[in-house]
């Protein structure tokens, strides 16, 4: 009986905390990758998913496109990116392979990222194609395990850059990979001195009003189709992502999943409750003599009722305690295995407690009622 409740509550606790954890973490990773949610992302290629590297990017997005998007109604400002992955870094015999992002000055602001230490590059450095770099935490750990990177010269694809700052830690992206294995350099420097390309891998448009994202997404799409001289039947050679829409969809999927899982756990608990109710009701028949005796020594019907109700409550209560413990430990093991953050949620704890108390009370009603109705004379005669 107790085991049934324990299993049910454990399932409930595991499922609801994993569901909750997954949902939160998905949103968090998405936010990590996309930055602030009041932005629209434009990438080259018709069906690009995720990040692309400059080497494999169709040359369809120009800085001029970005400038045009900047004057679309509802767009506050635009950031540009040209990036490559798997770029070799070297510093005094230490090596790392990383993504290098050539970004416009407003990149940090649009992404909502923070500097860890040092400074970001200036307009002057951007204009002057300065070889300056801001490195992510993973890069710092790989190249500068025990010294201050600021002022040091690293080589990016054999081109020397001075490290001027370190980014704040960002954590994991949607697929679980680190977002800190990155080097940021000025967009102009990336175009002329590193990649020798003039097209972009991403344009980020920040909106005046995040609620207008659908309308602005449509305006940008129309603008780029015109600029790229696409006739109405052609597929686009770029794609526009509306992060608000993506997030809304993901969080909806997450919560639907959580609901289904919690529903399954509730069915397990319902069955356990029925089992408790029936076994305890059988127990009333076996314990008629005890009930008769208690009545003879002064127990009121209400005392007997309370006793049986309490026994059911204690039974399912212990099941709940056991289940919650197992569940939370299990959820955290599963979370560790899935590389999700450990979690302890009061809502799960309160839910478990409420559900086990409710099951104890409801399943105790019938046995308690039966027990209180036992005729002491009959019971003591047997």
């Amino acid at each position, binding site marked *: 009986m107790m085991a049934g409740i324990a299993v049910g509550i454990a399932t409930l606790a595991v499922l609801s905390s994993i569901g909750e954890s997954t949902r939160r973490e998905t949103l968090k990773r998405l936010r990590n990758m996309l930055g602030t949610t009041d932005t629209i992302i434009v990438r080259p290629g018709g069906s690009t998913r995720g990040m692309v590297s400059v080497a494999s990017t169709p040359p369809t997005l120009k800085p001029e496109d970005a400038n045009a998007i900047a004057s679309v109604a509802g767009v506050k400002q635009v950031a540009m990116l040209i990036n490559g992955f798997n770029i070799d870094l070297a510093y005094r015999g230490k090596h790392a392979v990383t993504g290098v992002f050539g970004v416009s000055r407003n990149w940090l602001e649009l992404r909502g990222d923070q500097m860890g230490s040092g400074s970001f590059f200036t307009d002057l450095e951007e204009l002057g194609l300065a070889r300056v770099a801001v490195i992510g935490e993973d890069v710092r750990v790989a190249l500068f395990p025990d010294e201050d990177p600021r002022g040091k010269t690293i080589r990016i694809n054999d081109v020397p850059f001075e490290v001027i700052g370190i980014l704040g830690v960002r954590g994991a992206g949607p697929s679980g990979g680190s977002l800190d294995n990155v080097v940021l350099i000025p967009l102009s420097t990336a175009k002329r001195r590193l990649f020798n390309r003039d097209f972009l891998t991403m344009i980020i448009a920040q909106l005046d009003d995040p609620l207008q994202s659908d309308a602005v997404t449509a305006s940008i799409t129309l603008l780029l189709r015109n600029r790229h001289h696409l006739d109405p039947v052609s597929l686009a050679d770029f794609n526009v992502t509306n992060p608000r829409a993506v997030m809304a969809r993901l969080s909806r999927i997450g919560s639907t999943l959580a609901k289904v899982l919690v529903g399954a756990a509730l069915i397990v608990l319902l069955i356990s409750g029925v089992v408790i109710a029936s076994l305890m009701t059988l127990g009333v028949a076996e314990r008629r*003599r*005890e009930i*008769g*005796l*208690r*009545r*003879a*020594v*002064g*127990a*009121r*019907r*209400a*005392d007997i009722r309370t006793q049986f109700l309490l026994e059911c409550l204690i039974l399912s209560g212990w099941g709940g305690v056991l289940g919650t413990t197992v569940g939370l430990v299990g959820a955290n093991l599963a979370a560790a295995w899935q590389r999700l953050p450990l979690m302890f949620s009061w809502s799960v704890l309160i839910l478990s407690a409420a559900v086990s108390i409710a099951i104890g009370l409801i399943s105790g009603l019938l046995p308690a009622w039966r027990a209180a109705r036992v005729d*002491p*004379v009959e019971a*003591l*005669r047997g």
Partner: protein
Amino acid sequence: MISVHIEVDHLSKIHKRGDGEDVVALDDITFRIASGEFVAIRGASGSGKSSLLSILGCLDRQTSGVYLLGGIKVSGLADAELSSIRSTQIGFVFQAFNLLSRTTALENVELPMIYGSASVDREKCASALTRVGLGARLNHYPTELSGGEQQRVAIARALINDPALILADEPTGNLDEASGAEIMALLVSLHREGRTVVLVTHDKVTASHASRVITLNKGQVISDVLVSRNLHAKPA
């Protein structure tokens, strides 16, 4: 002055059987028991003596007639009030002991205190067990005790709330002669303390401890005899 403890007036009890037939268990019984009396109720099985004891013990209600316990009309009382009377004014001793098997002797004796008005007093329970000669077995479980010892635990339990009335239903029925004699000696000592003792038995020897024997047959009183009235009575 002798006060009346139990007054039964034209009391009848009719049981409904499963097949709808009525069975007359008690048929128009009338008697009085004074405070401090030791009364044996005798009769063959089916004579109605157990039905009478259930009504006297406030566990069952009569079909008609009046039952006054200590001057209070019991038939008009609600369940909670009857329970309160059972817990404070009546001590039961059963043929089958009826101890809770998963609790110790001490905890069994505590039971009426849980339902009584006073709070549980372990010391008092221990001294009650000591009084019935089980001071060394407080924490034994019923299965670790002999029949006579179990019945002594039951007597300690019956005494714990200091009731004026002891109702014993064949208390020696499951015991050997020696244990039975010890139990009867305990009941006699309760009577000597001034308690009213009503003993139901079919056994003539057991009944002989009482100072009055009421004999039932087919639900009616067929004899009501004072025997050796001064043998166990309190000194005047």
